């Protein structure tokens, strides 16, 4: 009951944050980015034409009126029309979401699936060679720019070894997408009963997912390691050992469960970032996801698209932390008290 109320209170907090984010985004975009009219007019247009367009874009109103209009439209999920795609921003985001989610989920799972065991290994072999190895590799994973790792992987696996396909997005060129059911190619291809297509999609996914996995596994491994080290020095682990529990039980059941708490927080943050689009990564792999969309809108000052994207990304971030907090309430009984 108390738990329910805590969850509810925590969820309510999303709204003021969302409102803050939207307001900030709006004014930041208006104040910093100037007048988008120029995007809509040919360079040699006359001044009268410009005024006409300005009015059509709703930019002739005073700023507060624009702001209220924006909020009102937002309530109806209307984020405006993107100049570069000619689509409604909401539809654009929705279209690109599956690509980002799919890559993000696979990359994140990869990161979690390797990061946590690596962290555990490093912790239990603390200050011995497996630890140094893990720490060295993960140090690289954190210190190397993601775009750089991606480039290197492409040049190795596509250019030199030619065992993986090039960075052309989710499917090889010329291969049409299966009918959109979930938007996830891993699922839709199978639903369409086309395992060959599934395999093609998997091959396209390998390099970007590896890059993403590498850069997410690294912090996860490091946090896991230090949390495990801390947990393993705790009194309750000493108790578990003294009661005769075996090493595996001690590590994976008793320590890891406690060590997971900071890891969950980290994963929440990382997931927030990833699902908001790994900007440079998607761009390098021409992955048609939200990150690439964001980058393009930044490069072309696509006002509406950018604003819509930032709102989406921030809300996602807020939601990720909401999920983390809720998870926390389930993992850590102390918080429920």
């Amino acid at each position, binding site marked *: 009951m108390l738990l329910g109320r805590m969850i509810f209170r925590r969820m309510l907090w999303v709204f003021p944050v969302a409102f803050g984010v939207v307001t900030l985004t709006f004014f930041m975009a208006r104040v910093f980015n100037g007048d988008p009219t120029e995007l809509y007019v040919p360079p040699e247009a006359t001044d009268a034409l410009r005024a006409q367009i300005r009015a059509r874009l709703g930019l002739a109103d005073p700023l507060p009126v624009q702001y209220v209009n924006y909020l009102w439209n937002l309530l109806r999920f209307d984020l405006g029309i993107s100049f570069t795609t000619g689509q409604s921003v909401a539809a654009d985001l929705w279209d690109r979401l599956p690509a980002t989610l799919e890559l993000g989920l696979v990359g994140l799972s990869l990161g979690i699936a390797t990061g946590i065991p690596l962290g555990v290994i490093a912790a239990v072999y603390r200050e011995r060679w497996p630890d140094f190895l893990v720490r060295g590799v993960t140090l690289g994973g954190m210190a190397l720019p993601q775009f750089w790792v991606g480039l290197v992987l492409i040049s190795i696996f596509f250019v030199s070894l030619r065992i993986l396909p090039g960075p052309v997005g989710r499917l090889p060129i010329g291969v049409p997408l299966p009918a959109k059911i979930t938007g996830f190619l891993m699922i839709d291809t199978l639903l369409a009963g086309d395992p060959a297509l599934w395999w093609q999609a998997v091959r396209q996914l390998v390099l970007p997912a590896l890059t993403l996995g590498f850069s997410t596994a690294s912090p996860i491994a490091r946090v896991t390691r230090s949390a495990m080290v801390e947990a393993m020095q705790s009194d309750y682990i000493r108790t578990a050992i003294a009661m005769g529990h075996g090493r595996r039980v001690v590590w994976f059941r008793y320590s890891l469960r406690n060590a997971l708490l900071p890891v969950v927080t980290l994963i929440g943050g990382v997931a927030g970032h990833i699902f908001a689009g790994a900007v440079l990564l998607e761009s390098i792999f021409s992955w048609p996801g939200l990150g690439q969309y964001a980058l393009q809108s*930044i490069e072309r000052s696509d006002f509406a698209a950018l604003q819509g994207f930032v709102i989406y990304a921030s809300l996602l971030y807020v939601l990720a932390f909401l999920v983390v907090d809720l998870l926390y309430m389930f993992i850590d009984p102390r918080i429920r008290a």
Partner: protein
Amino acid sequence: MKIARLPLATLETSVVPSRARRKPKSYWALRIGIGILAFYIAVALLSLVWTPYDPLTPGIGDGYDAPSLAFPLGTDRLGADMLSRLMAGARYDLGISLTAVAIALTVGTTIGTFAGYYGGKVDIAILRGVEIFQAFPGLLFAMLVVQAVGAGITNVILVLSFVGIPDYLRLARAEIHAKRHWQYAEAARMVGNPPWRVAFRHLLPNSVGPVLAFTSINAAFSALVTASLGFLGLGLGPNTPEWGSMIARGQDGVMTGQWWVSFFPGLAIMGLTGSFYLLGDALSDITDPRRRQ
């Protein structure tokens, strides 16, 4: 039964190796981290007075000259000397991340200390505001602002420090908030210290550990973001020998065999961020209260 009092034993000679589990941490991470950082600083300082060639001058070589005696790290697309640019780049990447971190650190911890010590409504208001700012993904925020207000060192530094402030604020706030009822803080109040003195003289210096450890992480992040901005062409001026933009300038060589143009700046970035991370590791270890006993 009574055991005779044992003679004052000097250190036993036989060390039983099977029970000798491990040596405690020698500060290798700290040493390596400081070593690399010192090297970078030295290079940055040296580049102020000497580089093999002028790092800003194009056309010294033909462009894409492979590493040779004349150009130990080759030349870039415009024929500028890579080694000179790499050396000068230390100034920018190091300078930017350190300055940004210094600003974020100062502003963030000051506000955080106030919020943490005084608590109450102001504290809650600040925390909520910070939460909103933190909802913006850092790199994206930096890209957005730099794209909007324009490139340039000052802008990049300001944006990076702005991105960092919330973290310091929260960290300092949490530390101070937790410690403000510690006995030495109360003792400090009882000897007549005004609140600000308790907060800044007594509490804050004792929270440097976590803050310092985070500072390294933040510095690494700043260096990476600087490089990413540079890579996107959103960073500093176009001819600035910043490593990220150097990678971007050399990106076209990756697949055509001129690997050195983007390889060396990549290495430089990794060295710098790596050393920051190592320092962060070491510092959080060293300042861990359990180690301080």
